[in-house]
């Protein structure tokens, strides 16, 4: 029997009370009136980069959508470094200095504050409310910390919605082979195998969606909770896929961002990302359990290549982390993994540095068994995610060893093999998932 889709967007289901919009914000929305394109930049202490981002967005709108009614919305979560002032100062009044042209229509710029205690959902809620009130036909979300953003990003994100009538646009970034390893080796393959769509960046910070999807999301009850739990990008994308909205991806180029002084450590990043993925699988079980294989997603943009900075990797540290985990976390891993898988992981721990190889099939089994254990709450969920980290370090070490001299195309092929292994073993995930709690 099919279960009801928990994130089905049902207009009749009332959502939580919408946030009360500040008077000043409403005044700005009323003054701007209806728009075709609404770009959104949430910010929190991004003084150094947000001016550049705002300028790139304004230029992108003028250059690629001069006849459309447009607005750029900045929502600030309570910056202490003068970010809102930088935003206010970043108005471009004369575009001829950049483009030899001026916009044919007025471009609006709206600033507001969002409730940072609600996390990223607070900002997205503001965007959805604004999109609804301004009847925006396309909305795009852009990070405030980007250094590599160009006006072309606006076209790449918005054009598929305005011209090809897509409802959700995911980004594709040009990355060094050792960048985004968690996405490449875990999140994207599992997402693709589960949901059946070959999306390369399921957690990309930049994405766009149609006004129609925004309105339906705003009306839906369960979905808002989802966004709080798994983050806006994954939440909106999963909702679009689960409800058969047209989804595509667009090439943006290299994503270089300003690193924060206090970057979250790997444990936190891993817990947040993998936790969001597993949480999403749990919520969307009815949507993915019966899907087989995967289909190509329409991809837009010219995928160019640029030389990226070489990346230093401490292999010793990765392997040491894996071995320490296998040695010390035996009791925990034994409770999560199937006996065969656990034995195979123990055998890996005995391999020499040079001969170390973490087979794809074994890695996929490990991840699926962890996902099923997460669903069954075998351990406290944070602990369970932390127990996967040493094994992930082993997989990363193996990947680095295998692709040391590989070209971009060879790395892509290697990752494709991993994705295919994930798809092949999906019945195993379904079987483990449905085992009794």
């Amino acid at each position: 029997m099919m279960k009801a889709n928990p994130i089905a967007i049902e207009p009749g289901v009332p959502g939580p009370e919408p946030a009360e919009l500040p008077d000043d914000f409403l005044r700005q929305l009323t003054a701007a009136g209806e728009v075709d394109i609404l770009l959104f930049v949430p910010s929190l202490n991004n003084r150094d980069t947000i001016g550049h981002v705002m300028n790139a967005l304004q230029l992108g709108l003028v250059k690629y959508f001069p006849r459309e009614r447009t607005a750029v919305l900045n929502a600030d979560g309570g910056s202490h470094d003068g970010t809102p002032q930088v935003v206010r100062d970043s108005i471009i009044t004369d575009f001829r200095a950049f483009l030899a042209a001026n916009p044919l229509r007025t471009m609006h710029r709206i600033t507001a504050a969002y409730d940072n205690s609600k996390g990223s959902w607070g900002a997205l809620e503001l965007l959805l409310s604004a999109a609804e009130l301004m009847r925006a036909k396309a909305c795009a979300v852009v990070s405030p910390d980007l250094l590599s953003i160009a006006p072309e990003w606006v076209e790449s994100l918005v054009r598929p919605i305005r011209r090809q009538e897509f409802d959700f646009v995911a980004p594709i970034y040009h990355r060094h082979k050792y960048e985004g390893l968690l996405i490449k080796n875990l999140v994207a393959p599992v997402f693709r195998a589960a949901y059946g769509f070959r999306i390369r960046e399921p957690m990309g910070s930049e994405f766009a969606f149609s006004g129609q999807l925004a309105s339906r999301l705003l009306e839906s009850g369960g979905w808002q909770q989802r966004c709080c739990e798994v983050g806006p990008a994954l939440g909106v994308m999963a909702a679009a896929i689960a409800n058969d909205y047209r989804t595509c991806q667009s090439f943006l180029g290299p994503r270089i961002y300003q690193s924060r002084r206090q970057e979250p450590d790997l444990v936190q990043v891993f817990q947040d990302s993998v936790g969001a993925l597993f949480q999403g699988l749990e919520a969307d079980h009815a949507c993915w359990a019966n899907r087989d294989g995967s289909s190509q997603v329409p991809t837009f943009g010219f995928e160019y290549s640029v030389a990226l900075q070489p990346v230093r990797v401490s292999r010793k540290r990765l392997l040491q982390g894996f071995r320490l985990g296998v040695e010390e976390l035996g009791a925990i891993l034994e409770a999560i993994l199937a006996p065969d898988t656990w034995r195979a992981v123990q055998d890996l721990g005995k391999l020499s540095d040079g001969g170390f190889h973490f087979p794809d099939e074994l890695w996929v089994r490990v991840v699926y068994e962890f996902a099923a254990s997460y669903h069954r709450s075998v351990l406290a969920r944070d602990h369970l995610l932390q127990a996967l980290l040493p094994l992930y370090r082993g997989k990363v070490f193996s990947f680095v060893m295998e692709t040391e001299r590989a070209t971009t195309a060879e790395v892509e092929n290697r990752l494709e093999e991993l994705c295919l292994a994930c798809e092949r073993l999906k019945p195993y995930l379904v079987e483990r998932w449905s085992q009794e709690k």
Partner: protein
Amino acid sequence: MADTIMNSLKEMLNHLAAAVEQFLPRLLVMLMIIIVGWLIAILSKTIARRALALAKFDALSESAGTAQLLRNAALPAPRDLVASLTFWVVWIVFLLLGIDALGVVSLRDQISQVLLFLPQIFVAVLILFVGFLLANFLARAALLAAVNANLPFARLLAGSVRFLVVLLTVSMALEQIALAHRTVLIAFTILFGAVMLGLAIAFGIASQHLARQVLQKSFSPGEAEKEEEITHL
């Protein structure tokens, strides 16, 4: 003379008969209370087992690590253990009530003392249970944090955390039942102080290098970044 002896004997026999006559119904009442209590205890055990199954107590204990702890100590599963505990508590209460029904004056005070003591024992058992859960949870959190920070002696660290929490729990439980509480308090203070001092000295000597690394990482993040440049997201 013989009449006097006979009369005394007769009187004694009459007293005995009267006492037996008085005692027999009480004995019967006691037996009834014990049998009814036994039935109620069995019923309580069944209800407790079902309620715990509905509340997914086994899964909770498994995730908290208590089940593993009990398995290691060759004890029954947590649900069975709590159900058995319920059975014995209920039956012991009925046993004491039954003995009280005999009306033996010298036993009455002892029984009321035992009955008054039961809630304290119950609270002490509860403290022990929650303490063991917490000890396992914190020990596992420490183990995972240490392993993910690539720290050596992760298991020793986790074991120390578990030991300290168990020590604190046991002394709280003993304090609850007021068992030699002064001795327990003094012993705990000495032991706790000794352990903390030992740990501080051991940490200071063994991890000078680590402490230097941590401080360097905190005050000059640029140095640490050079070690690893791969990004995960």
